[in-house]
């Protein structure tokens, strides 16, 4: 088959252009030209102390969960956890009817690899603020709910589909079959 680019229908996270050619040099040049994301594959978010954002979330309502919620996040500082620099990310619900003053979740996100290694729940109980800490030295990764943030493994390996199989990975609290794939989105 001659060198060229064939558009193939794959699952949405697979690049839409599949390159076949005999020459490795030509292949690399074509890949760089056609998939510019490869050149900037090492994406990580850029946070500074003082950054903030608001997220609105819809979720299946239940007796203890509202259908629509708003959460404010703030990068409150940088602190050492397990001898590593961590962003201190504070999340607070925005609905005063559902959230007591002082309720918050504090995530300690490693500044080098973005793993959440500690989570502190602060809640109002009987008029007093109480904190519960989850210490997770291996990091909280994977698409888990229940207060987790499901941060991808930064830096993203954009366009790297060399291994898309599930892999058994060990967290501090469980083992899970996980995989992660990233690409440039279709706007």
């Amino acid at each position: 088959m001659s060198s060229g680019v064939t558009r193939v229908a794959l699952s949405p996270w697979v690049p839409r252009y599949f390159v076949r050619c005999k020459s490795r040099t030509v292949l690399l040049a074509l890949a760089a030209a056609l998939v510019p994301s490869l050149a900037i594959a090492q994406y990580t978010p850029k946070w500074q102390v003082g950054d903030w954002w608001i997220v609105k979330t819809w979720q299946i309502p239940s007796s203890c969960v509202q259908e629509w919620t708003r959460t404010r996040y703030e990068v409150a500082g940088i602190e050492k956890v397990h001898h590593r620099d961590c962003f201190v990310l504070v999340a607070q619900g925005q609905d005063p009817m559902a959230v007591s003053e002082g309720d918050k979740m504090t995530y300690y996100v490693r500044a080098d690899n973005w793993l959440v290694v500690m989570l502190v729940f602060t809640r109002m109980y009987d008029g007093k603020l109480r904190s519960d800490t989850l210490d997770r030295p291996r990091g909280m990764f994977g698409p888990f709910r229940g207060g987790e943030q499901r941060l991808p493994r930064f830096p993203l390996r954009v366009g790297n589909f060399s291994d898309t199989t599930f892999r058994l990975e060990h967290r501090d609290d469980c083992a899970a079959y996980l995989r992660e794939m990233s690409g440039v989105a279709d706007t």
Partner: protein
Amino acid sequence: MVKRLLADGDAVGERVVRPTDVVYQVHEEMGSGLGPDSPHGGKSITQSLQLWSPDQPWRLYEEVVNYYGLGFKRHVLQRSWLVASGRGERYAPKWHVGDWWVVKTWQQRPPSGLRPAGDLWRWDYRRYDVARIDKVGRNDCYVLEIRGDERPNIGRDGAAGAVLYVRTDNWLVVRTEEANFYSGKRLSPYVRDYPRGLFGPFISEPRLPGFPLHIMNPDTAFKKERRDDCYANLREISRPADPELVKRLLAEGDTAGGPVIRPKGAVYDVRSELGGDYDPGSPTGRRDITQSHQLWSDDLPWRIYEERVGYNGWYGGRSVEERSWLVAVGQGEK
């Protein structure tokens, strides 16, 4: 795909953030029943689809979906959208000695039997100069001189009509000096000290917001606060400004006396409100409210726009009493 998923987020509540840069999609997946005893390729998959963009600190979108069983029936558990973000939330204007600016104000004159009925409104110009930094008590204060005229071209010559002492740490006005004339002769100014500071949307006051701004503060209830001269029910709500609103309000300022200043930096929308307390039994929606609606920008020393509005709770009336725009800024003598 990005366009469609973000448009879904606009359907309820505020408009969601749009990217200005490339967007990355990330699929995080967890499979259950994927061990060697599950030859059919798994019983269910939990997937988090996320969209990230380098111009934002957090993902623009996430959906968490469960795919169940061999037929992979799809069940959406949650969807979330980024609705606002900011860098350096602790916004306060930056003043230096020598900074000056001019504000034009369209304001209602007090009623008078001597004035024709159609002559209630007038344009007024004020020049502000950051003259020096002085101590009031133990606190460093910007000394802000104010000179007024009916023309925009105001120099710094002559004594100031009023002087404000604004604390450099929290921007509270703690002293005012007002020019004092008697029989055409200038006497010592009237000096008034306000240890607690002047705050709130009061007429004849500078109405500076509580700097640094607490943007998107979830506490939007009125709070009874003690000033030196009174108690007042106050609240202040600030958020990133809607660009369309900024464009419209500034365009309205161009209509008389020349163009107004346009911001180049981020713009913050601040609503400082005084809740009427004449009738404590009034339902919330029927209180009288005096509001100062202001727009501040990262790159400018003074608000680019302000309107002072009175809302009459019982009759539902709204009256705009004053509107002002920033028309000139500079450093050193003009």
